[in-house]
């Protein structure tokens, strides 16, 4: 079954308006969601077991901790946009951190202006209720809403990241940081760890201050430092003898303190905790453009820095993380592929990719056709294939690599099937089935007694039984 099938088979129950008595009962309900970027569910379970996260343990004892699937491609820009719109990329239009401008090979960086679907907080605002949304990635520049929004990754200018603008002076006063400066790793791992901890502390301080400022019906606060830690220190948690093993656990102890601080503030709100994808250790980085070049599908100009430097005669190219695009005539200025030839070419590329091995075993878990994953008005910009690797093999879009695989400074990579979703008992009984990241927005709206817009592909996790 393709991932999209779950959307197609949505039972009609979630589209029905709540019954009147439910509306009345739920009308004043508020909801709180904490996002932990990139925190794997398996890691949460381990930290609950070994005592690293005692607050999460207490929460899990009176709620549901579930492993969740995230969007494909499983990177933050796509995943968080799928979260906030409850929609698949074919509808919301975000397929990666970078994309190509129409009829061109020129790269652009998608931002909030490119999101084509209504957000969760638009729906909350339409009902006359307020949202406080702090540090959700891909919300930059901040768009006006009924409430407060401070954009997350990749926000550049705090002025453009903040709505309403009156909040900016306070953020500056607090020395708030939008993101960890990952370039610190070039200085040293100590410097990067220090940067991660400092950014986390300032983030938590601001999140709690905004929580306490009240005036919200929906509070969303995201911690990004979890993801940054795992990109550079994932090897530390697997190895008790590692220099940063205890620092990794202490970091999660601080995250747990933050969860405890939220938990003690709750006054009957539905509380959810989520991550946008999981994480695992890297064995090798894999460069799909190298493979496409070696197999005669892609030609690049000398000293190419990106796919912008594609050369004539190319039939396909890859973009981070595992997106493959055919170089269609009509879609790209140097297009070579006729639509009629696409099925055979895609089949050939899929077979070839499936045969890549490392240490004697295949490294590709599954290759999705476009229509298995995406559906909606933005389908025309979708990649033709999305490649899912097995754990340990991180797919990359770099073009300047001489080898198919190598290692860089990174020790962690994203996973698609091990994201985290916690839902507190206040939400009532949950339906069965593994949650998908697009199910969160409908679940939050449902828990607040608000209707789920038709534009959302996900299904509420709340049971109506």
């Amino acid at each position, binding site marked *: 079954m393709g991932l999209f099938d779950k959307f197609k088979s949505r039972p009609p129950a979630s589209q029905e308006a709540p019954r009147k008595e439910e509306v009345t009962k739920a009308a004043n309900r508020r909801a709180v969601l904490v996002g932990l970027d990139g925190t794997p569910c398996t890691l949460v379970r381990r930290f609950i077991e070994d005592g690293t996260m005692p607050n999460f343990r207490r929460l899990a004892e009176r709620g549901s901790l579930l492993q969740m699937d995230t969007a494909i491609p499983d990177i933050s820009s796509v995943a968080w946009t799928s979260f906030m719109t409850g929609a698949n990329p074919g509808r919301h239009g975000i397929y990666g951190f970078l994309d190509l401008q129409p009829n061109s090979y020129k790269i652009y960086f998608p931002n909030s202006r490119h999101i084509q679907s209504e957000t969760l907080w638009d729906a909350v605002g339409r009902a006359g209720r307020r949202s406080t949304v702090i540090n959700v990635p891909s919300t930059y520049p901040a768009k006006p809403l009924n409430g407060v929004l401070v954009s997350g990754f990749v926000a550049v200018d705090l002025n453009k990241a903040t709505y309403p603008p009156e909040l900016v002076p306070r953020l500056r006063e607090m020395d708030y940081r939008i993101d960890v400066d*990952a370039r610190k790793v070039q200085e040293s791992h100590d410097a990067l760890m220090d940067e991660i901890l400092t950014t986390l502390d300032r983030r938590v301080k601001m999140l709690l201050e905004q929580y306490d400022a009240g005036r919200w019906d929906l509070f969303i606060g995201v911690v990004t430092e979890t993801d940054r830690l795992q*990109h550079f220190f994932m090897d530390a948690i697997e190895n008790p003898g590692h220099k940063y093993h205890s620092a990794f656990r202490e970091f999660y102890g601080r995250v747990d303190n933050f969860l405890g601080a939220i938990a003690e503030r709750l006054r009957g709100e539905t509380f959810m905790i989520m991550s946008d994808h999981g994480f695992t250790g890297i064995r090798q980085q894999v460069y799909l453009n190298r493979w496409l070049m070696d197999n005669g599908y892609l030609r690049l100009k000398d000293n190419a820095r990106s796919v912008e430097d594609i050369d004539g005669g190319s039939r396909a190219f890859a973009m981070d993380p595992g997106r493959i695009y055919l170089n269609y005539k009509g879609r790209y200025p140097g297009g070579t592929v006729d639509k009629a030839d696409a099925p055979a070419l895609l089949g050939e590329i899929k077979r070839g990719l499936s045969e890549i091995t490392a240490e004697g075993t295949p490294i590709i878990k599954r290759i999705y056709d476009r229509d298995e994953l995406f559906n909606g008005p933005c389908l025309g910009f979708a990649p033709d294939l999305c490649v899912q690797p097995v754990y340990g093999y991180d797919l990359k879009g770099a073009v300047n690599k001489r080898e198919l695989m190598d290692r860089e400074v990174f020790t962690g990579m994203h996973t698609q099937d091990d994201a985290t979703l916690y839902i507190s008992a206040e939400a009532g009984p949950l339906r069965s089935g593994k949650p998908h990241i697009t199910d969160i927005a409908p679940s939050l709206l449902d828990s607040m007694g608000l209707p789920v817009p038709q534009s959302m592909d996900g299904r509420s996790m709340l049971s109506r039984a």
Partner: protein
Amino acid sequence: MERKGFTLWFTGLSGAGKTTLARLVEGELKARGHKVEVLDGDVIRTNLSKGLGFSKEDRDTNIRRIGFVCDLLTRNEVVAIAAAISPYRAVREEVRRQIGSFVEVYVECPIDVLSDRDVKGLYKKALAGEIRNFTGVDDPYEPPASPEVTVHTDSETPEQSAARIISRLEELGLVAASQTEGYSEEDEEEVRRRLEALGYV
């Protein structure tokens, strides 16, 4: 971009959201470096138009006075925002011709929604006959024939309506778009560096 003056004229029934939207747009335009003045109908009637009633003649006089001030402000590179019911089309058109740089926003909301909402408690009184000459109840309202923007405050949030007004002003070239577009060229370089640091580029 040179900051030009213009008049942004909100028209619509009482309680439709003219003042709320005027204040939201005011905040956004100030943040973008414009000089802005709001002329609110309810406030104007307590000073500039004090003593005027609600006959057609008095209503038209009130609108001409607001229009006169808007014209002065517009000529001096100020964005003049008028939020007044201004029920009669002819006098609005007269003010438009006088000012020239004039953007009309029709704040549309069905009367049954307004009387349900009844924020100021006026619809109840008007329907009970305690207030006379109440627009939409026993006094006419003539919607604009071709406003630059129409917002539907029964189905949009104020923020969504305000954003639509701002983007129309951008389209008309009255407000610079660059401040709210995604990334500038310098931003893009910074975004690229940050994504490189995480291995995404």
